[in-house]
């Protein structure tokens, strides 16, 4: 009989897999670059977090958990940073969002970098 922690770990890993699949489908199906960033962000944060926390629960209190925590921290720091840099680079270089640029320009985003 599995312990409650083990069951929780299974649930988290499976939930993370579901989010990874959703992100992949979104990356393929959504209509333009800025919406696809949204889909990729789901995979980078939620899917990664759920799967790695599930593995940490399975591992218990050991060196493996420390490595998984470092992995979690790196992915948390670098994933959104890369996505943000990509979105800003695309916007500055003139790739138009689906609904036009007015929505962003109205908030005085400085795009003279």
């Amino acid at each position: 009989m599995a312990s409650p922690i083990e069951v929780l770990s299974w649930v988290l890993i499976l939930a993370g897999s579901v989010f990874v699949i959703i992100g992949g489908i979104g990356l393929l199906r959504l209509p333009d670059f800025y919406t696809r960033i949204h889909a990729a962000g789901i995979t980078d944060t939620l899917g990664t977090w759920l799967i790695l926390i599930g593995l940490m629960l399975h591992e218990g209190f050991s060196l493996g958990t420390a490595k998984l925590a470092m992995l979690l921290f790196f992915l948390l720091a670098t994933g959104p940073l890369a996505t943000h840099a990509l979105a800003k680079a695309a916007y500055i270089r003139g790739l138009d969002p689906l609904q036009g640029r007015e929505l962003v320009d109205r908030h005085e985003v400085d795009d003279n970098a």
Partner: protein
Amino acid sequence: MIGIYAAATAAIVVCMGLTLIRSIAGPTVFDRILAVNSFGTKTVLLIALIGYLSGRPDFLDLALVYALMNFIGTIAAMKFTRFGDLAGMEDDDSEELY
């Protein structure tokens, strides 16, 4: 337990296939960079899961290194498409978005 890892690994492999399709299809260079970045993140997860699937959690070290390389690679690819050079900061206006 093995079944759970196998299911998660299969889900990630399928998702990597979808991501690869997007990175080939484009249409803009940003789509490709985004897809490759996402592919790298999934590779990290895949390495970690395969380590547990085969009972060798030492694979986590490889996953750590890959996570670091992936971020640097994304930034370098973005800078390269912007300037055509990893060292220079010369800005040219003849940009190719597609």
